[in-house]
């Protein structure tokens, strides 16, 4: 089991299929439909169960190549996590601070974390890109991006 990650994934999928099926069985009935809205979900739930069982049964030991594909050096893993968290914070602040401010902050932060050291370029890109994006969406495409605390 230790070197067969497919088995863990199969178990996880089995759990997902189970939850999905439970929810599918709770769908309300609609009296006049020949095929009600629960038919497809139920079918899919059972199909996923069958497929997970097949995946579990046919799981092979990982080849070295596959293993290498999914091993990430610790530093990179940290950076990926920081990126994900940065995106999360970006989303949370987007409507609070507004597009311009949040994007500038994001574009100052992320390249630096990723290891880009030319700060002058970073600052220029952050300000110019955010400004151009904001202008083109708001004034050229007429799609209003969140203004936030900024006056324009």
């Amino acid at each position, binding site marked *: 089991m230790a070197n067969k990650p497919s088995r863990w994934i199969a178990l996880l*999928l089995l759990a997902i299929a189970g939850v999905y099926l439970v929810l599918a069985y709770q769908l309300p009935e609609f009296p006049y439909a020949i095929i009600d809205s629960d038919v497809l979900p139920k079918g899919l739930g059972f199909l996923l169960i069958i497929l997970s069982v097949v995946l579990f049964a046919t799981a092979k030991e990982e080849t070295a190549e596959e293993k290498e594909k999914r091993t990430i050096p610790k530093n990179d893993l940290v950076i990926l996590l920081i*990126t994900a968290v940065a*995106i999360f914070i970006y989303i949370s602040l987007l409507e609070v601070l507004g597009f311009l401010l949040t994007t500038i902050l*994001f574009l100052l932060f992320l390249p630096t974390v990723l290891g880009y050291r030319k700060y002058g370029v970073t600052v220029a890109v952050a300000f110019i890109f955010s400004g151009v994006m904001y202008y083109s969406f708001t004034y050229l495409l007429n799609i209003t991006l969140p203004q936030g605390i900024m006056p324009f």
Partner: protein
Amino acid sequence: MDFSSILYGFQVALSPGNLIFAFIGVLAGTVIGMLPGLGPISAIAIMIPLSYGMDPASALILMAGVYYGAVFGGSTSSILLNAPGVSGTVATSFDGYPMAQQGKAGKALAIAAISSFAGGTISVVFLMLVAPFVADLAVTFGPTEYFALMLLGLTAISSLSDGSTIKAMIAAVVGLMIATVGMDQQTGTSRFTFGNPSLLEGIDFLIVALGLFALAEVCQLILRRKEKESKKKSDVGNLKLSKGELKEMGGPISRHSVLGFILGVLPGAGATIASFLSYISEKRLSKDPSSFGKGNIKGIAAPETSNNAATSGAFVPLLTLGIPGSGTTAVLLGALLVVGVQPGPLMLQDHPDVFWGVIASMYIGNLFLLILNLPLIPFLAKILAIPRQLLISLIIVFCLIGVYAVSFSTFHLYILLGFGVLGFLMRMFSFPAAPFILAFILGGMMEQSFRQAMTISNGSYNVFFQSNITIALFIVSLLSIFVPIISGYFKKKAEANEDERKGRTA
């Protein structure tokens, strides 16, 4: 064929505004496609938000440019860096990279550009000739035929995608599950929305496409961000080809524009398989197969012709049936729907202008690719030297704003992030993402045609066994799942025997 329509299509495509859109599309597509890991699906998804509010023709021209540009951009990074941007250009790197190492990168790029152009243009002619017939046939299709056809699309893409068939099928089933989220169109029941009104309309396809492809691929870029320094080359050398070299390309171009087109029409096959098959068959045909892999001109021309021809071929089912056969055309279908174009058998009758507009825009996209990109190649190659860290950050912002511009709610942005994580994990554990997105797009349509069929028959499943076309399609879908499994089993057995024999002789 209706020549006035195609002329009208060209008229639309050649207006100054649309020429600019074609240029922007090709350029942006090339740049995005050049980034290793980011393919046409991401490129199209990233560019979709720009097409909001555009008139359909301009948006289509933009998208066609992005599509061809991304495929070509992939070849560029295959040749210059040996890092294919998309799986469809892996075969190009076999001979393209060796050629670049011999200092003939410019030549390799020119061969790629010319073959792409030829493959694309020749196959658009096929598309023009074939599509009306398929559309005529498709008009007679009922819900059972459609259901069977979509099922075939899913089974074919699952069995043909790289890696394990079972994993691909799981990806497809999960894609279908995600498609069930939202209010059921027929009964109004809300499914899996957990009382959240933002989920009532279901999850927008753009969120899935951007998360599963663009964001997940950006994660891969993050892991590979340090790669470029060592291989940076700004000088691509001379672009000129001699007459003899051009002549040498003639054979592969004519052969593989046909082969690529046919493979592209088939559901599930697409550019990757077309380019590999072309490469292999060209090598078999060659008098000197040992020169392949060492910078053979035909070794670049064959896959490049083929992958572009396959992209046009993939438009046949998309435009005539309204059913995408691959991940890329699934996203293109989404792009068409965003601008208010519903492809299908009636499109040719009801909206010939749009149909021919798309075709004309494909010619224009190809032409732009050639006349703009060829002279720009030396400059475009410098794009590869732009710091990855900056590009990664900008692409992330593009994805987020793209989704915000459709939904105007941060809730959907969190879902986007979730799909990004899912897409990354799927890549880590070798679950293909193309079946997922195709299933997601087809899910609603499949359920609808299934229900229509069952309503016609008043609940009897016999309706699925009354049309020969439906039965034939079901049989082919079953074969597409079981043949690879069975042949895989026999192959394994043969290999085991081989090992045993080797063991004995050793």
